[in-house]
């Protein structure tokens, strides 16, 4: 792709946003970053990625960490900042990619190449999906969804000025329960292509 394109996908847990992001990466032939971002960072720094994954997309715990002269000893915060720096560096270098979550719609908002989407779904759709994917009961799935969404919200809102899931922060917010994952992906692809055509 000649022009730089950065696709940021925020998502509710169980909405299928991750799957949509994967499909978009394939359709536009772009590198895809999610948890694997930490593997990239670990490889770059020659480190053990297992230590990083424990703290991925987690909010800073206020009572168990402190800041001293700009140094935070929250592993969650250090890992998050590493990811932000990595993404900003990639964007700065003119690279195109698809990124899932990691506050990307906020930390990369200064780049014109960014197109950001937030994927939501009806609670029933999410429940069915999680029950099927993880083989858990309805009650367990409900608890998992609530726990993950709460964590993502806390994570996002700590690092960003904007609120997680607030439609004003994204180019498009879509409820994929209405059209299903396939058509929603087509819709986003169409949106992206239209926007690319419009660019001077």
């Amino acid at each position, binding site marked *: 792709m000649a022009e730089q394109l950065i696709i940021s996908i925020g998502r509710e847990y169980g909405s299928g946003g991750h799957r949509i992001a994967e499909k978009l990466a394939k359709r536009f032939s772009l590198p895809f970053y999610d948890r694997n971002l930490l593997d990239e960072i670990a490889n770059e720094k020659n480190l*053990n990625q297992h*230590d*990083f994954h424990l703290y991925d997309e987690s909010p800073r715990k206020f009572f*168990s960490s*402190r800041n*001293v002269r700009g140094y935070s*000893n929250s*592993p969650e915060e250090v890992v998050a900042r590493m990811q932000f720096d990595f993404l900003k560096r990639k964007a700065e270098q003119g690279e195109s990619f698809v990124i899932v979550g990691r506050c990307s719609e906020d930390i990369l908002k200064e780049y014109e190449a960014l197109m950001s989407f937030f994927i939501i779904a009806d609670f029933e759709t999410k429940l069915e999906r999680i029950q099927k994917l993880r083989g858990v009961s309805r009650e367990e799935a409900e608890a998992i969804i609530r726990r993950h969404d709460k964590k993502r919200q806390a994570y996002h809102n700590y690092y960003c000025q904007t609120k997680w899931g607030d439609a004003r922060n994204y180019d498009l917010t879509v409820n994929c329960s209405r059209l299903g994952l396939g058509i929603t992906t087509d819709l986003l692809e169409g949106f992206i292509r239209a926007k690319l055509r419009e660019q001077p």
Partner: protein
Amino acid sequence: MAAQIAAVLIFIAMFVMVVIDKIERQYVTLGCGLLTLGLVFGLLMRDVNAIVETLNLKSIITLEFWGLAKETAGESTTGINWATIIFIAGMMIMVEGMARVGFFRWLCMMIAKLVHYKTIPIFITFMIMSFVLAMFIDSITVILFLAAVTVELSQLLKFNPVPMILSEIFCANLGGSATVCGDPPNIIIGTSLGLSFFDFLQNTGVIALVCLVVTVVYFYLVFRKQLKGEVKTSANKSEISHPRVIEAAAHPIEEAVNVAEMPDPKSAITDKKGFVISCIIFACAVILLVTHAQTGLTVAFIGTLIAILTLITSGKNMGTILKKVDYKTLLFFIGLFIVVGGLEQTGILEVVAGFIGKISGGNGMVMVAIIIWCSAIASAFVDNIPFAATMVPIISELAGASAGIDIRTLAWGLSMGTDIGGSATPIGASANVVGTSVAAKGGYPIGWGKYCLKVAPATILVLIVSTIWIFVRYF
């Protein structure tokens, strides 16, 4: 009564906000300090004298404050401890000057070179270096450089830096307890109670030294397996393979590392002339601190003098050094002393001292045990500086009210409790925060579990040794 309640509420609110860390702590203490001055002293007590005593500005313009009077007035624990603030500011300027010319990095690299880049000797010498440096320099700076060099060496020599960083943090806190200038709680205790460098060295210094031996043995036994992957040194470049830390964490290493490929300590020095001057100023600071009981010069004077010397000799870099001074911490101290002054002026601290005196039944050993262990437990979870600032007037009250209890004994207990207790958790002391942060940035995040598993037992061990030592020596 209303003033007392307001003072306590402001104090609790300040502590909670400092712990939550949502608002920068200097704003928290200054805001609470202003509230103390306006609401407690102004509105509820209508006592201008309390405001004047707490601001304590008059003390700065006396000759005694600078150690220039022939006779010194009695020490005061009331209000803003300007001596502590001026001394810390002076040391910050000196340390910035030393950091600018590359002193700390040079020292770390030099020691690593002297022990031929062998992991276990580096581990032990860095612990001792951390202890010794922290006796004179703030532990944040000590750990900032030591941890950074440790991560760098770990990548070159292929060892896991976490054991070393944890040991260095512990030794920095321990070293800080040895002298009046080592740790902010000691500066507060020393300047408030008129205790000299040698007073500390002969008392907490001896305890800290004994504890250092215990600590080195403890950490060696705990970490020896992780550190056993020692690197063989070699002069042959062809034997070098590129290190991968991922493998280093999992397997013992028996590969050779070329000493010649290690960074030259001299390369750390950014300004040769400045380096020599910094070393001389540091030596002067150490001499002045060691001899301040004989010369009569106060720590405020020494701090001001070394700051002026550093700034004059830094030439065009004066602005850079001044910009790097941690003004936020100095403002934090000012607000903190005002809030504690609120507790003092309203008589709350007398009540707390009376309570401790009552539950100890006037028994000195019980009193010391309460002070050491309560200080340690509190310091493990909250910043030990506000705690020490609050406890100093309390131990003064306790010693005044109880016959046969030497305030110095209580001061040593408070010093050891606050300084050592802070080591127990990743948030207990500033050095822990900075050390674990540097480790995480280097790719080694250290959670509470990993930290406490190894360091909390060392803290308890050292506290037991300190308690026994104080009991045997002073009772």
